[in-house]
Protein backbone atom coordinates (compact mmCIF):
# COMPACT_ATOMS: atom_id res chain seq x y z
CA UNK A 1 0.00 0.00 0.00
CA UNK A 2 1.21 3.48 -0.79
CA UNK A 3 1.65 5.62 2.28
CA UNK A 4 2.50 8.68 0.24
CA UNK A 5 1.41 9.48 -3.29
CA UNK A 6 2.66 12.63 -4.93
CA UNK A 7 1.09 13.45 -8.26
CA UNK A 8 1.52 16.41 -10.59
CA UNK A 9 3.13 18.40 -7.79
CA UNK A 10 4.08 21.91 -8.91
CA UNK A 11 5.80 24.41 -6.66
CA UNK A 12 6.71 27.87 -7.93
CA UNK A 13 7.96 31.07 -6.35
CA UNK A 14 7.16 34.46 -7.85
CA UNK A 15 10.32 36.58 -7.93
CA UNK A 16 11.41 39.80 -9.61
CA UNK A 17 13.14 37.81 -12.33
CA UNK A 18 10.01 35.85 -13.07
CA UNK A 19 8.36 32.71 -11.82
CA UNK A 20 10.88 30.23 -10.41
CA UNK A 21 9.47 26.78 -11.04
CA UNK A 22 11.16 24.83 -8.29
CA UNK A 23 9.27 21.63 -8.87
CA UNK A 24 7.26 20.61 -11.93
CA UNK A 25 4.76 17.81 -12.44
CA UNK A 26 6.47 15.53 -9.94
CA UNK A 27 4.90 12.07 -9.63
CA UNK A 28 6.07 9.35 -7.29
CA UNK A 29 4.87 7.24 -4.43
CA UNK A 30 6.33 5.75 -1.26
CA UNK A 31 5.12 2.29 -0.22
CA UNK A 32 4.59 1.43 3.41
CA UNK A 33 7.81 0.21 5.01
CA UNK A 34 9.93 1.40 2.12
CA UNK A 35 12.74 3.93 1.86
CA UNK A 36 12.37 6.26 -1.10
CA UNK A 37 15.27 8.55 -1.89
CA UNK A 38 15.15 11.62 -4.10
CA UNK A 39 18.55 12.57 -5.49
CA UNK A 40 19.49 15.81 -7.13
CA UNK A 41 22.05 18.55 -7.12
CA UNK A 42 21.61 21.87 -5.34
CA UNK A 43 18.81 23.82 -6.96
CA UNK A 44 17.15 20.78 -8.50
CA UNK A 45 14.05 21.36 -6.39
CA UNK A 46 14.39 18.34 -4.17
CA UNK A 47 14.00 20.11 -0.84
CA UNK A 48 10.76 21.85 -1.81
CA UNK A 49 9.16 18.45 -2.33
CA UNK A 50 9.86 17.51 1.29
CA UNK A 51 8.70 20.94 2.44
CA UNK A 52 5.51 20.63 0.40
CA UNK A 53 4.74 17.25 1.97
CA UNK A 54 5.19 18.74 5.45
CA UNK A 55 3.48 22.08 4.69
CA UNK A 56 6.69 23.93 5.51
CA UNK A 57 7.02 25.94 2.30
CA UNK A 58 7.45 29.72 2.55
CA UNK A 59 4.18 31.63 2.37
CA UNK A 60 4.81 33.03 -1.10
CA UNK A 61 5.05 29.56 -2.68
CA UNK A 62 2.45 28.66 -5.31
CA UNK A 63 1.55 25.02 -4.95
CA UNK A 64 -0.66 22.81 -7.09
CA UNK A 65 -1.14 19.10 -7.66
CA UNK A 66 -1.90 16.44 -5.14
CA UNK A 67 -0.18 14.78 -2.20
CA UNK A 68 -2.06 11.89 -0.64
CA UNK A 69 -1.05 10.50 2.73
CA UNK A 70 -2.59 7.07 3.43
CA UNK A 71 -5.18 7.80 0.77
CA UNK A 72 -6.10 11.20 2.19
CA UNK A 73 -5.43 14.43 0.28
CA UNK A 74 -3.11 16.61 2.38
CA UNK A 75 -1.52 19.13 0.03
CA UNK A 76 -4.16 21.82 0.04
CA UNK A 77 -5.86 21.18 3.37
CA UNK A 78 -5.90 23.86 6.05
CA UNK A 79 -2.97 24.38 8.34
CA UNK A 80 -5.20 23.52 11.29
CA UNK A 81 -6.15 20.11 9.86
CA UNK A 82 -2.60 19.38 8.78
CA UNK A 83 -0.98 20.18 12.12
CA UNK A 84 -2.75 17.09 13.53
CA UNK A 85 -0.65 14.92 11.22
CA UNK A 86 2.67 16.58 11.86
CA UNK A 87 4.83 15.06 14.54
CA UNK A 88 2.86 11.88 15.17
CA UNK A 89 1.90 10.76 11.63
CA UNK A 90 4.52 12.48 9.45
CA UNK A 91 7.68 13.82 10.99
CA UNK A 92 10.87 15.47 9.89
CA UNK A 93 14.51 14.60 10.46
CA UNK A 94 16.00 18.04 9.91
CA UNK A 95 19.09 18.73 7.87
CA UNK A 96 20.86 20.82 10.49
CA UNK A 97 20.67 19.26 13.97
CA UNK A 98 22.45 22.14 15.70
CA UNK A 99 20.25 24.83 14.21
CA UNK A 100 17.10 22.78 14.62
CA UNK A 101 17.26 22.72 18.40
CA UNK A 102 16.00 25.74 20.31
CA UNK A 103 19.12 27.10 22.06
CA UNK A 104 17.09 28.48 24.99
CA UNK A 105 15.18 25.33 25.88
CA UNK A 106 16.36 22.27 27.78
CA UNK A 107 16.69 19.18 25.57
CA UNK A 108 14.27 17.12 27.65
CA UNK A 109 11.59 19.74 27.21
CA UNK A 110 12.14 19.75 23.45
CA UNK A 111 11.46 16.00 23.40
CA UNK A 112 8.50 16.37 25.77
CA UNK A 113 6.85 18.90 23.44
CA UNK A 114 6.22 16.14 20.92
CA UNK A 115 4.74 13.93 23.64
CA UNK A 116 2.49 16.81 24.65
CA UNK A 117 1.29 17.20 21.06
CA UNK A 118 0.45 13.49 20.99
CA UNK A 119 -1.63 13.79 24.13
CA UNK A 120 0.69 11.98 26.54
CA UNK A 121 -0.29 13.14 30.06
CA UNK A 122 2.11 15.64 31.67
CA UNK A 123 3.15 13.39 34.56
CA UNK A 124 4.48 10.75 32.13
CA UNK A 125 6.60 13.24 30.17
CA UNK A 126 9.81 12.92 32.14
CA UNK A 127 9.77 9.11 32.31
CA UNK A 128 8.89 8.84 28.60
CA UNK A 129 11.60 11.37 27.71
CA UNK A 130 14.15 9.38 29.70
CA UNK A 131 13.19 6.14 27.95
CA UNK A 132 13.34 7.81 24.52
CA UNK A 133 16.79 9.20 25.31
CA UNK A 134 18.12 5.87 26.61
CA UNK A 135 16.82 4.19 23.44
CA UNK A 136 19.10 6.57 21.54
CA UNK A 137 22.01 5.11 23.56
CA UNK A 138 22.63 8.17 25.69
CA UNK A 139 24.48 6.89 28.74
CA UNK A 140 23.01 9.47 31.13
CA UNK A 141 19.54 10.37 29.81
CA UNK A 142 18.59 12.52 32.83
CA UNK A 143 21.68 14.66 32.36
CA UNK A 144 20.99 15.08 28.64
CA UNK A 145 17.36 16.00 29.36
CA UNK A 146 18.49 18.71 31.76
CA UNK A 147 21.15 20.09 29.37
CA UNK A 148 20.84 22.84 26.84
CA UNK A 149 21.68 22.01 23.19
CA UNK A 150 24.99 23.93 23.30
CA UNK A 151 26.18 21.64 26.07
CA UNK A 152 25.93 18.56 23.82
CA UNK A 153 28.33 17.45 21.10
CA UNK A 154 27.36 17.59 17.43
CA UNK A 155 26.78 13.85 17.31
CA UNK A 156 24.57 13.96 20.40
CA UNK A 157 22.48 16.71 18.84
CA UNK A 158 22.09 14.63 15.71
CA UNK A 159 20.83 11.71 17.79
CA UNK A 160 18.55 14.02 19.74
CA UNK A 161 16.83 15.50 16.65
CA UNK A 162 16.38 12.00 15.27
CA UNK A 163 14.94 10.97 18.64
CA UNK A 164 12.50 13.88 18.55
CA UNK A 165 11.45 12.91 15.03
CA UNK A 166 10.87 9.30 16.09
CA UNK A 167 9.40 10.12 19.53
CA UNK A 168 5.80 9.70 18.47
CA UNK A 169 6.48 6.64 16.26
CA UNK A 170 5.37 8.38 13.07
CA UNK A 171 4.23 6.37 10.05
CA UNK A 172 6.20 8.47 7.58
CA UNK A 173 9.58 10.07 8.12
CA UNK A 174 10.82 12.86 5.87
CA UNK A 175 14.60 13.23 6.04
CA UNK A 176 15.83 16.42 4.41
CA UNK A 177 19.52 16.05 3.52
CA UNK A 178 20.34 14.26 6.77
CA UNK A 179 24.07 14.12 6.02
CA UNK A 180 24.54 17.67 4.75
CA UNK A 181 27.34 19.50 6.53
CA UNK A 182 28.18 16.63 8.86
CA UNK A 183 31.73 15.55 9.58
CA UNK A 184 32.88 12.03 8.71
CA UNK A 185 32.02 10.45 12.07
CA UNK A 186 28.59 12.05 12.34
CA UNK A 187 27.79 11.09 8.75
CA UNK A 188 28.79 7.51 9.44
CA UNK A 189 26.52 7.38 12.49
CA UNK A 190 23.64 8.84 10.50
CA UNK A 191 24.07 6.25 7.78
CA UNK A 192 24.10 3.50 10.42
CA UNK A 193 20.94 4.87 11.92
CA UNK A 194 19.16 4.74 8.57
CA UNK A 195 20.50 1.23 7.94
CA UNK A 196 18.92 0.25 11.27
CA UNK A 197 15.62 1.75 10.14
CA UNK A 198 15.92 -0.19 6.90
CA UNK A 199 16.65 -3.43 8.74
CA UNK A 200 13.64 -2.88 10.98
CA UNK A 201 11.63 -2.59 7.76
CA UNK A 202 8.62 -0.98 9.37
CA UNK A 203 9.35 2.68 8.76
CA UNK A 204 8.40 4.50 5.61
CA UNK A 205 10.96 7.12 4.73
CA UNK A 206 11.11 9.85 2.13
CA UNK A 207 14.71 10.96 2.00
CA UNK A 208 16.02 13.91 0.08
CA UNK A 209 19.75 13.97 -0.45
CA UNK A 210 22.65 14.67 -2.73
CA UNK A 211 24.70 12.06 -0.94
CA UNK A 212 24.73 9.32 -3.58
CA UNK A 213 26.61 6.83 -1.42
CA UNK A 214 24.03 7.14 1.34
CA UNK A 215 21.24 6.81 -1.21
CA UNK A 216 22.73 3.69 -2.75
CA UNK A 217 23.14 2.04 0.65
CA UNK A 218 19.65 2.56 1.99
CA UNK A 219 17.22 3.24 -0.84
CA UNK A 220 14.48 0.86 -1.95
CA UNK A 221 13.20 3.28 -4.56
CA UNK A 222 15.21 6.10 -6.04
CA UNK A 223 14.21 9.19 -7.98
CA UNK A 224 16.56 11.56 -9.78
CA UNK A 225 15.61 15.21 -10.07
CA UNK A 226 16.90 17.64 -12.66
CA UNK A 227 15.79 21.28 -12.87
CA UNK A 228 12.65 20.66 -10.84
CA UNK A 229 11.57 17.55 -12.74
CA UNK A 230 11.92 13.87 -12.01
CA UNK A 231 13.99 12.42 -14.85
CA UNK A 232 14.18 8.85 -13.61
CA UNK A 233 12.32 6.92 -10.92
CA UNK A 234 12.40 3.25 -10.12
CA UNK A 235 13.85 0.50 -7.92
CA UNK A 236 17.07 1.83 -6.43
CA UNK A 237 19.20 -1.18 -7.35
CA UNK A 238 18.34 -0.73 -11.04
CA UNK A 239 18.76 3.04 -11.03
CA UNK A 240 22.22 2.77 -9.49
CA UNK A 241 23.47 -0.24 -11.44
CA UNK A 242 22.07 0.54 -14.87
CA UNK A 243 20.99 4.17 -15.14
CA UNK A 244 18.85 4.94 -18.21
CA UNK A 245 18.61 8.74 -18.35
CA UNK A 246 21.82 10.43 -19.56
CA UNK A 247 21.78 12.71 -16.48
CA UNK A 248 21.62 9.72 -14.11
CA UNK A 249 24.41 8.09 -16.11
CA UNK A 250 26.46 11.28 -15.73
CA UNK A 251 25.85 11.37 -11.96
CA UNK A 252 26.95 7.76 -11.53
CA UNK A 253 30.06 8.35 -13.63
CA UNK A 254 30.93 11.29 -11.40
CA UNK A 255 31.11 9.06 -8.31
CA UNK A 256 34.66 8.45 -7.03
CA UNK A 257 34.31 4.66 -7.32
CA UNK A 258 33.22 5.04 -10.99
CA UNK A 259 36.19 7.16 -12.01
CA UNK A 260 35.01 10.62 -10.95
CA UNK A 261 34.26 11.83 -14.47
CA UNK A 262 32.65 15.26 -14.19
CA UNK A 263 29.62 16.23 -16.28
CA UNK A 264 30.15 19.25 -18.56
CA UNK A 265 27.97 22.34 -18.23
CA UNK A 266 25.53 23.65 -15.66
CA UNK A 267 21.84 23.04 -15.11
CA UNK A 268 19.63 25.84 -16.49
CA UNK A 269 18.29 28.46 -14.04
CA UNK A 270 14.82 27.65 -12.75
CA UNK A 271 13.53 31.08 -13.80
CA UNK A 272 14.52 30.69 -17.48
CA UNK A 273 13.91 27.09 -18.41
CA UNK A 274 14.11 26.17 -22.10
CA UNK A 275 10.97 24.95 -23.91
CA UNK A 276 12.23 21.52 -24.90
CA UNK A 277 14.39 19.04 -23.06
CA UNK A 278 16.06 20.74 -20.07
CA UNK A 279 19.08 18.45 -20.35
CA UNK A 280 19.60 18.95 -24.09
CA UNK A 281 22.58 21.34 -23.79
CA UNK A 282 24.52 18.95 -21.58
CA UNK A 283 23.41 15.71 -23.15
CA UNK A 284 26.30 13.57 -24.49
CA UNK A 285 23.90 12.01 -27.02
CA UNK A 286 21.54 14.86 -27.94
CA UNK A 287 18.56 14.06 -30.11
CA UNK A 288 17.09 16.16 -32.96
CA UNK A 289 13.59 16.70 -31.53
CA UNK A 290 14.92 18.80 -28.60
CA UNK A 291 12.15 21.38 -28.91
CA UNK A 292 9.62 18.78 -27.74
CA UNK A 293 9.55 18.45 -23.97
CA UNK A 294 10.04 14.74 -23.19
CA UNK A 295 7.39 13.04 -21.04
CA UNK A 296 7.86 10.42 -18.35
CA UNK A 297 7.34 6.96 -19.79
CA UNK A 298 7.92 3.47 -18.55
CA UNK A 299 11.06 1.61 -19.62
CA UNK A 300 11.97 -1.77 -18.05
CA UNK A 301 9.85 -1.15 -14.93
CA UNK A 302 11.17 2.36 -14.46
CA UNK A 303 9.89 5.85 -15.26
CA UNK A 304 12.28 7.79 -17.49
CA UNK A 305 12.01 11.24 -19.05
CA UNK A 306 14.06 10.89 -22.24
CA UNK A 307 12.86 10.48 -25.80
CA UNK A 308 15.85 8.25 -26.62
CA UNK A 309 15.11 5.65 -23.99
Amino acid sequence: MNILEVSELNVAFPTRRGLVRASQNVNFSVKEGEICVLIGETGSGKSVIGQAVLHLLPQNARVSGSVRYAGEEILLISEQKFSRLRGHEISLIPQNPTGSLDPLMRCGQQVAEVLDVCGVPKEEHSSRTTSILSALSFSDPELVAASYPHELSGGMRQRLTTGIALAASPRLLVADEPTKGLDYAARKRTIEMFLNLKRRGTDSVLMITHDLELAEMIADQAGVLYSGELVEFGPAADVFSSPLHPYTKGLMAALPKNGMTPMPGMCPGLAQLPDGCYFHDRCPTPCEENHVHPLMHEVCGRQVRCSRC
Partner: protein
Amino acid sequence: MHHYLIKRTAYLILTLVIASMFTFVVVNATPGEPAEVLARHLYIGLEEVAPPELIAEVSERYDLNKPLLQQYLEWVGGILHGDLGHSILFNKPVDRLLMLHLPPTILLTAVAMSFATIAGLVLGIYSALHQNKISDHIIRVGTIFSVSMPGFWVAVMLILVFSIWLGLTPVSGYSGPQYIILPAIALGLHTMASIIRIMRTSMLETMDKPFVTFAKAKGLPMRRVICSHACKNAFLPVLTVIGMSFGALLAGSVVIETIFSWPGIGAMLMKAISARDLVLIESTIMVIVFMFLIVNFVIDLLYHVIDPRITYE
Protein backbone atom coordinates in the same frame (compact mmCIF):
# COMPACT_ATOMS: atom_id res chain seq x y z
CA MET B 1 30.39 34.17 39.14
CA HIS B 2 31.94 35.78 42.24
CA HIS B 3 34.92 36.74 40.18
CA TYR B 4 32.59 38.35 37.63
CA LEU B 5 30.72 40.32 40.28
CA ILE B 6 33.96 41.69 41.71
CA LYS B 7 35.14 42.67 38.24
CA ARG B 8 31.86 44.35 37.42
CA THR B 9 31.89 46.28 40.69
CA ALA B 10 35.41 47.49 39.95
CA TYR B 11 34.28 48.66 36.49
CA LEU B 12 31.29 50.37 38.07
CA ILE B 13 33.50 52.34 40.45
CA LEU B 14 35.92 53.23 37.66
CA THR B 15 33.04 54.46 35.48
CA LEU B 16 31.70 56.56 38.35
CA VAL B 17 35.12 58.16 38.94
CA ILE B 18 35.52 59.02 35.24
CA ALA B 19 31.92 60.26 35.04
CA SER B 20 32.47 62.49 38.09
CA MET B 21 35.52 64.08 36.43
CA PHE B 22 33.68 64.65 33.17
CA THR B 23 30.64 66.06 34.91
CA PHE B 24 32.75 68.42 37.00
CA VAL B 25 34.80 69.66 34.06
CA VAL B 26 31.82 70.11 31.75
CA VAL B 27 29.71 71.90 34.35
CA ASN B 28 32.56 74.30 35.16
CA ALA B 29 33.51 74.81 31.51
CA THR B 30 29.98 75.85 30.52
CA PRO B 31 30.06 79.43 29.19
CA GLY B 32 29.03 82.05 31.71
CA GLU B 33 30.84 82.74 34.96
CA PRO B 34 29.05 80.62 37.61
CA ALA B 35 29.31 83.33 40.26
CA GLU B 36 27.75 85.89 37.95
CA VAL B 37 24.83 83.65 36.87
CA LEU B 38 24.25 82.67 40.49
CA ALA B 39 24.28 86.29 41.62
CA ARG B 40 21.65 87.19 39.04
CA HIS B 41 19.47 84.22 40.06
CA LEU B 42 19.78 84.75 43.80
CA TYR B 43 19.98 88.48 44.39
CA ILE B 44 18.93 90.56 41.37
CA GLY B 45 16.79 90.18 38.23
CA LEU B 46 17.86 87.82 35.45
CA GLU B 47 18.07 90.59 32.87
CA GLU B 48 20.23 92.89 35.02
CA VAL B 49 24.01 93.02 35.05
CA ALA B 50 25.57 91.93 38.33
CA PRO B 51 28.00 94.48 39.81
CA PRO B 52 31.53 93.19 40.41
CA GLU B 53 31.23 93.56 44.21
CA LEU B 54 28.22 91.24 44.25
CA ILE B 55 30.02 88.68 42.08
CA ALA B 56 33.01 88.79 44.42
CA GLU B 57 30.75 88.33 47.43
CA VAL B 58 28.92 85.38 45.87
CA SER B 59 32.24 83.75 44.89
CA GLU B 60 33.52 84.21 48.40
CA ARG B 61 30.39 82.90 50.09
CA TYR B 62 30.03 79.74 47.99
CA ASP B 63 33.75 78.89 47.74
CA LEU B 64 33.84 79.49 43.98
CA ASN B 65 37.30 81.13 44.24
CA LYS B 66 39.05 77.98 45.30
CA PRO B 67 41.12 76.13 42.69
CA LEU B 68 39.02 73.71 40.62
CA LEU B 69 40.99 70.67 41.77
CA GLN B 70 40.32 71.56 45.39
CA GLN B 71 36.63 72.09 44.66
CA TYR B 72 36.51 68.70 42.92
CA LEU B 73 38.27 66.88 45.73
CA GLU B 74 36.04 68.48 48.35
CA TRP B 75 32.94 67.47 46.40
CA VAL B 76 34.12 63.87 45.85
CA GLY B 77 35.33 63.66 49.45
CA GLY B 78 31.88 64.73 50.61
CA ILE B 79 30.20 62.08 48.49
CA LEU B 80 32.48 59.41 49.93
CA HIS B 81 31.35 60.48 53.39
CA GLY B 82 27.72 60.28 52.31
CA ASP B 83 27.34 64.04 51.91
CA LEU B 84 26.13 65.03 48.47
CA GLY B 85 26.56 68.73 49.22
CA HIS B 86 24.26 71.67 49.72
CA SER B 87 22.11 73.27 47.04
CA ILE B 88 22.61 77.03 46.79
CA LEU B 89 19.44 77.62 44.79
CA PHE B 90 17.05 75.72 47.07
CA ASN B 91 19.12 76.23 50.23
CA LYS B 92 18.64 72.56 51.14
CA PRO B 93 20.95 69.53 51.35
CA VAL B 94 21.16 67.77 47.96
CA ASP B 95 20.21 64.40 49.45
CA ARG B 96 17.01 65.95 50.83
CA LEU B 97 16.15 67.30 47.37
CA LEU B 98 16.88 63.94 45.78
CA MET B 99 14.69 62.11 48.29
CA LEU B 100 11.90 64.47 47.33
CA HIS B 101 12.39 64.47 43.56
CA LEU B 102 13.89 61.07 42.78
CA PRO B 103 10.74 58.96 43.44
CA PRO B 104 8.59 60.82 40.84
CA THR B 105 11.35 60.40 38.26
CA ILE B 106 11.80 56.71 39.02
CA LEU B 107 8.03 56.27 38.80
CA LEU B 108 7.80 58.12 35.48
CA THR B 109 10.78 56.29 33.98
CA ALA B 110 9.50 52.91 35.15
CA VAL B 111 6.02 53.52 33.73
CA ALA B 112 7.46 54.89 30.46
CA MET B 113 9.81 51.91 30.21
CA SER B 114 7.04 49.39 30.88
CA PHE B 115 4.81 51.07 28.33
CA ALA B 116 7.62 51.16 25.75
CA THR B 117 8.58 47.54 26.37
CA ILE B 118 5.10 46.03 26.39
CA ALA B 119 3.76 48.07 23.48
CA GLY B 120 7.06 47.68 21.60
CA LEU B 121 7.13 43.90 21.94
CA VAL B 122 3.46 43.40 21.12
CA LEU B 123 3.52 45.68 18.08
CA GLY B 124 6.92 44.36 16.94
CA ILE B 125 5.74 40.75 17.07
CA TYR B 126 2.43 41.64 15.45
CA SER B 127 4.18 43.55 12.70
CA ALA B 128 6.57 40.67 12.00
CA LEU B 129 3.79 38.10 11.89
CA HIS B 130 1.83 40.28 9.45
CA GLN B 131 4.83 41.17 7.31
CA ASN B 132 3.94 43.39 4.34
CA LYS B 133 0.26 43.46 5.25
CA ILE B 134 -1.49 46.81 5.74
CA SER B 135 -1.23 46.63 9.54
CA ASP B 136 2.54 46.10 9.23
CA HIS B 137 2.89 49.15 6.98
CA ILE B 138 0.85 51.30 9.37
CA ILE B 139 2.98 50.21 12.32
CA ARG B 140 6.19 50.89 10.38
CA VAL B 141 5.08 54.37 9.36
CA GLY B 142 4.11 55.06 12.97
CA THR B 143 7.52 53.78 14.08
CA ILE B 144 9.43 56.07 11.74
CA PHE B 145 7.25 58.97 12.87
CA SER B 146 7.85 58.20 16.57
CA VAL B 147 11.60 57.86 16.10
CA SER B 148 11.93 61.12 14.16
CA MET B 149 9.70 63.43 16.23
CA PRO B 150 11.42 65.16 19.15
CA GLY B 151 10.00 64.36 22.59
CA PHE B 152 9.00 67.92 23.45
CA TRP B 153 6.93 68.26 20.26
CA VAL B 154 5.18 64.94 20.94
CA ALA B 155 4.50 66.12 24.51
CA VAL B 156 2.93 69.39 23.37
CA MET B 157 0.84 67.59 20.74
CA LEU B 158 -0.38 65.03 23.30
CA ILE B 159 -1.44 67.85 25.61
CA LEU B 160 -3.19 69.62 22.74
CA VAL B 161 -5.11 66.53 21.58
CA PHE B 162 -5.86 64.60 24.76
CA SER B 163 -6.06 67.36 27.35
CA ILE B 164 -7.33 70.40 25.47
CA TRP B 165 -9.38 69.04 22.58
CA LEU B 166 -10.64 65.77 24.04
CA GLY B 167 -10.37 66.71 27.71
CA LEU B 168 -9.47 63.14 28.66
CA THR B 169 -6.36 63.77 30.75
CA PRO B 170 -5.05 66.57 32.96
CA VAL B 171 -2.59 68.94 31.30
CA SER B 172 0.11 68.73 33.93
CA GLY B 173 0.81 68.08 37.57
CA TYR B 174 1.39 65.19 39.95
CA SER B 175 -1.62 64.34 42.02
CA GLY B 176 -3.09 61.08 40.78
CA PRO B 177 -2.61 58.11 38.46
CA GLN B 178 -4.21 59.90 35.49
CA TYR B 179 -1.44 62.51 35.59
CA ILE B 180 1.22 60.04 34.57
CA ILE B 181 -0.40 58.89 31.29
CA LEU B 182 0.70 61.66 28.95
CA PRO B 183 4.24 62.17 30.30
CA ALA B 184 4.87 58.42 30.24
CA ILE B 185 3.71 58.15 26.62
CA ALA B 186 5.68 61.23 25.57
CA LEU B 187 8.79 59.89 27.29
CA GLY B 188 8.44 56.27 26.17
CA LEU B 189 7.33 56.74 22.56
CA HIS B 190 10.83 56.94 21.13
CA THR B 191 11.98 53.84 23.02
CA MET B 192 8.81 52.01 22.02
CA ALA B 193 9.57 52.72 18.37
CA SER B 194 13.15 51.43 18.72
CA ILE B 195 11.89 48.27 20.41
CA ILE B 196 9.27 47.72 17.66
CA ARG B 197 11.93 47.98 14.99
CA ILE B 198 14.41 45.66 16.68
CA MET B 199 11.74 43.15 17.70
CA ARG B 200 10.22 43.08 14.20
CA THR B 201 13.59 42.49 12.49
CA SER B 202 14.68 39.98 15.09
CA MET B 203 11.36 38.14 14.93
CA LEU B 204 11.49 37.91 11.13
CA GLU B 205 15.02 36.56 11.36
CA THR B 206 14.08 34.05 14.05
CA MET B 207 11.00 32.82 12.17
CA ASP B 208 13.37 31.69 9.39
CA LYS B 209 15.63 29.78 11.78
CA PRO B 210 15.71 25.99 11.40
CA PHE B 211 14.56 25.44 14.98
CA VAL B 212 11.30 27.25 14.23
CA THR B 213 10.76 25.07 11.15
CA PHE B 214 11.56 22.00 13.22
CA ALA B 215 9.17 23.13 15.96
CA LYS B 216 6.44 23.39 13.31
CA ALA B 217 7.40 19.98 11.93
CA LYS B 218 7.06 18.53 15.43
CA GLY B 219 3.37 19.35 15.16
CA LEU B 220 3.28 22.19 17.67
CA PRO B 221 0.41 24.60 17.12
CA MET B 222 1.54 27.89 15.55
CA ARG B 223 0.70 29.83 18.71
CA ARG B 224 3.07 27.63 20.67
CA VAL B 225 5.83 27.81 18.04
CA ILE B 226 5.67 31.60 18.28
CA CYS B 227 5.28 31.92 22.04
CA SER B 228 7.69 29.36 23.39
CA HIS B 229 10.34 29.28 20.64
CA ALA B 230 10.34 32.31 18.37
CA CYS B 231 9.53 35.16 20.76
CA LYS B 232 11.99 34.16 23.44
CA ASN B 233 14.86 33.90 20.96
CA ALA B 234 13.87 37.09 19.17
CA PHE B 235 13.78 38.98 22.47
CA LEU B 236 17.55 38.75 23.15
CA PRO B 237 18.65 41.75 21.03
CA VAL B 238 15.76 43.78 22.46
CA LEU B 239 17.22 43.40 25.93
CA THR B 240 20.28 45.38 24.87
CA VAL B 241 18.08 48.14 23.47
CA ILE B 242 16.15 48.30 26.74
CA GLY B 243 19.36 48.80 28.72
CA MET B 244 20.58 51.51 26.38
CA SER B 245 17.21 53.24 26.23
CA PHE B 246 17.15 53.63 29.97
CA GLY B 247 19.82 56.32 29.63
CA ALA B 248 17.82 58.03 26.89
CA LEU B 249 14.72 57.96 29.09
CA LEU B 250 16.55 59.58 32.01
CA ALA B 251 17.90 62.25 29.68
CA GLY B 252 14.50 62.73 28.05
CA SER B 253 12.86 63.12 31.44
CA VAL B 254 14.61 66.49 31.88
CA VAL B 255 12.53 68.00 29.07
CA ILE B 256 9.34 65.99 29.59
CA GLU B 257 9.19 66.72 33.33
CA THR B 258 9.56 70.42 32.68
CA ILE B 259 6.71 70.42 30.14
CA PHE B 260 4.34 68.45 32.37
CA SER B 261 5.41 70.15 35.65
CA TRP B 262 6.40 66.72 36.93
CA PRO B 263 8.25 67.21 40.20
CA GLY B 264 11.16 64.91 39.32
CA ILE B 265 14.92 65.35 39.21
CA GLY B 266 14.70 66.26 35.52
CA ALA B 267 12.76 69.44 36.20
CA MET B 268 14.95 70.15 39.22
CA LEU B 269 18.10 69.66 37.15
CA MET B 270 16.77 72.11 34.57
CA LYS B 271 16.42 74.80 37.25
CA ALA B 272 19.81 73.96 38.71
CA ILE B 273 21.50 74.26 35.32
CA SER B 274 19.99 77.65 34.51
CA ALA B 275 21.04 78.98 37.92
CA ARG B 276 24.50 77.29 37.83
CA ASP B 277 23.85 75.49 41.11
CA LEU B 278 27.07 73.54 40.56
CA VAL B 279 26.94 71.04 43.43
CA LEU B 280 23.30 70.18 42.78
CA ILE B 281 23.97 69.60 39.05
CA GLU B 282 27.03 67.48 39.68
CA SER B 283 25.55 65.34 42.44
CA THR B 284 22.27 64.78 40.56
CA ILE B 285 24.12 63.70 37.44
CA MET B 286 26.20 61.30 39.50
CA VAL B 287 23.01 59.74 40.87
CA ILE B 288 21.61 59.41 37.33
CA VAL B 289 24.85 57.80 36.13
CA PHE B 290 24.74 55.43 39.08
CA MET B 291 21.15 54.40 38.30
CA PHE B 292 22.02 53.85 34.63
CA LEU B 293 24.97 51.65 35.58
CA ILE B 294 22.91 49.59 38.02
CA VAL B 295 20.14 49.03 35.45
CA ASN B 296 22.64 47.87 32.86
CA PHE B 297 24.30 45.61 35.39
CA VAL B 298 20.95 43.99 36.13
CA ILE B 299 20.31 43.60 32.39
CA ASP B 300 23.66 41.86 31.95
CA LEU B 301 22.64 39.42 34.64
CA LEU B 302 19.26 38.95 32.93
CA TYR B 303 21.06 37.86 29.76
CA HIS B 304 22.44 34.95 31.68
CA VAL B 305 19.00 34.06 33.06
CA ILE B 306 17.39 34.08 29.59
CA ASP B 307 20.24 32.71 27.49
CA PRO B 308 22.03 29.72 29.02
CA ARG B 309 24.82 30.04 26.46
CA ILE B 310 26.05 33.19 28.17
CA THR B 311 28.12 32.47 31.25
CA TYR B 312 30.05 34.86 33.41
CA GLU B 313 33.43 33.52 34.37
